[in-house]
């Protein structure tokens, strides 16, 4: 006859141990027996705004903060007057760095800006050859948002041409519109919820500056495994 315990799956066993363990209540940290929570069970966002690093209310303040953060992170940020200027700026970078090939994904901004570069393109839509992308000089992507508070770029597998495009080539160029600037991290998460709701992309990533490491004597080195350069072209 089968032992009853052996019929239980590991899932059932672990959950049973968890439930058994939680029979005894634990004190709320820092509450010293007076168990009143300062965080409402439903949402941390409104309160978190009062504690996280401050962000100004106006667009100008937020833009200035993003620029300051990007500079500290050693990302290049160019604020451009129009879509055409953005296109020119991209052509200039491609010429200066003598790109031979770049990778990108279909999209309104990426198609427009990369149309006349006159270089071979590795496109991610419909699948791509990894070796080919690895050999590209740059990856050009759109994004979901720019976060003023941290100087981050928010990308997803859907908005930025998959998972590898924004990390595999040595130079990541992000194309963005001014309206995509959001104040802070809570706003970025609210945007994700609103935009994707029940059907999230399989990857969501906050990119905060070019890839870096400090694993050798805690000295900052850029381009550990991901891009050595991050350029943000915004109009």
């Amino acid at each position, binding site marked *: 006859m089968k032992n009853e315990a052996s019929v239980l799956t590991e899932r059932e066993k672990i959950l049973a141990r968890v439930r058994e363990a939680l029979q005894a209540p*634990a004190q709320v*940290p820092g509450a010293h027996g007076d168990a009143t929570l300062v965080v409402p069970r439903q949402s941390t966002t409104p309160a978190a705004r009062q504690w996280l*690093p401050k962000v100004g209310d106006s667009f100008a303040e937020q833009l200035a903060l993003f620029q300051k953060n990007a500079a500290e992170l050693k990302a290049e940020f160019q604020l451009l007057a129009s879509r055409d200027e953005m296109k020119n700026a991209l052509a200039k970078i491609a010429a200066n760095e003598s790109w031979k090939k770049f990778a990108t994904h279909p999209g309104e901004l990426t198609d427009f800006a990369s149309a006349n570069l006159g270089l071979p393109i590795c496109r991610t*839509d419909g699948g791509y050859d990894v070796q080919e992308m690895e050999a590209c000089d740059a990856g050009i992507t759109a994004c979901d948002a720019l976060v003023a508070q941290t100087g981050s770029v928010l990308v997803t597998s859907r908005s930025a041409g998959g998972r590898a495009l924004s*990390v595999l080539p040595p130079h990541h160029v992000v194309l963005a519109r001014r309206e995509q600037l959001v104040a802070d991290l*809570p706003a970025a998460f609210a945007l994700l919820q609103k935009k994707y709701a029940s059907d999230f992309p*399989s990857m969501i990533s906050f990119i905060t500056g070019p890839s870096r490491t400090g694993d*050798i004597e*805690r000295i900052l080195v850029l*381009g550990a495994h991901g891009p050595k350069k991050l350029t943000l072209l915004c109009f």
Partner: protein
Amino acid sequence: MSAFATDFLKQARVMTADLRHRKIIRTALTNYEIVRDKRKGAFQSWESARQAAAETKWEAVNHLDQYLVEFVSKLEARGTKVHWASTGAQASEIILQIVREKKARSVIKSKSMTSEEVHLNSALEKAGLEVVESDLGEFIMQLRDEPPYHIVFPSMHLTRGEIKELFQRELGDAPSDDPQELTMVARRALRKKYLTADIGFTGANFAIAETGMISITENEGNARLTAALPKTMVSLLGIEKVLPRLEDLALFLPMLATAGTGQALTCYNTMYGGPRQPGECDGPEEFHVILLDNHRTELLADAEQRDALHCIRCGACLNACPIFRNVGGHTYATTYSGPIGSVITPHLRGLQDWKHLSNASSLCGGCTEACPVKIDLHHHLLHNRRNAATEKPAFFERLIYKIFAFAANRPGIWSVAKKLGRLGLPLQNLVKGTALDPAKAWTQTRELPPMPKESFKDWWSKRK
């Protein structure tokens, strides 16, 4: 005394006398303290944020069954295969099963302390697989065949010269000892591995119940590549990693970065909610998530110390700890070192074997103050001491306290004992620091204060 305790004391003695080691650690951590304090200062209220983070983790851990079920059902709904492992051996076996199914030959790994805890690398290597650590610090430690020195900074105890020699010896490629050039050596060596590995393995920093996602925090982009290129992705995480809501990350990501490395946000903070979805152009065809218990439910059952499961593995308590800074990470001989390691290792690996770590503490409380989720670390060290003594009373210690209590309750005996003590102390002076000295542990490295000419009591009674 357990063999682990004997080794700890022996190694601690060596390390505390190693001035070169202490200088390296002091330099690294002084720089960390400067940037961390700057980042903390940028918060409008770091203290309120800590309280909120502590309560959010309390909410998650104290309703762990509900949040785990929610997390798993959301993940499974989008095609992720979820596995449960009660022990480390089971976790390794699940991964080996995936390896066999996929006929995999190589695994690229991003940093995961949980995989260190279950000794995954040796299990995979025993099965004949090539396993490559992709985080630079972990890569260095793998080449040295040593466990990570620190849970966030695995190779912080090494100098660039040592790393240059290592790369020269193991890779035949080390143009100079410049950190920039050394990093590029590792970049070149590992690039090929991402492109050819059959399985990408990662840990996780958070598990989001609301949306069924894992969140990975890193700086190098190695986890991003590990999760992008191989056909199969496997992530191992402890069951305590759960957070209730996606938006909780708006608080936890900057706090983890601030406490962990002194950054406002680390370079890549990435959430994965499944394998490649319809319409996506890349990403793994299969995504496996393994939830590990490995004694966590035993710690959960200890309501007094349950908050130790709130830990987000930022390493801030290690950095603040005077013991860690002097004895170094390897002396602990545990996966998790420093104050949090001293608190949880007795639960993970046995109280009597590991109780000595709770005595290696100045009880200064620096760890508790540094903890971004307010774990009551230094009190838990006391709780471990108490529990160890209750479970297995030390006969000799008890006897001494009994004798002391007996004498202290009887003024006649007390005054005789005091007089004997005054006579005894000069004798003790003769054998000071030697094997005959009963106070050897103290007097070996410290001076006793000189004996006053008369006792306070004698002086007081004369004065009247």
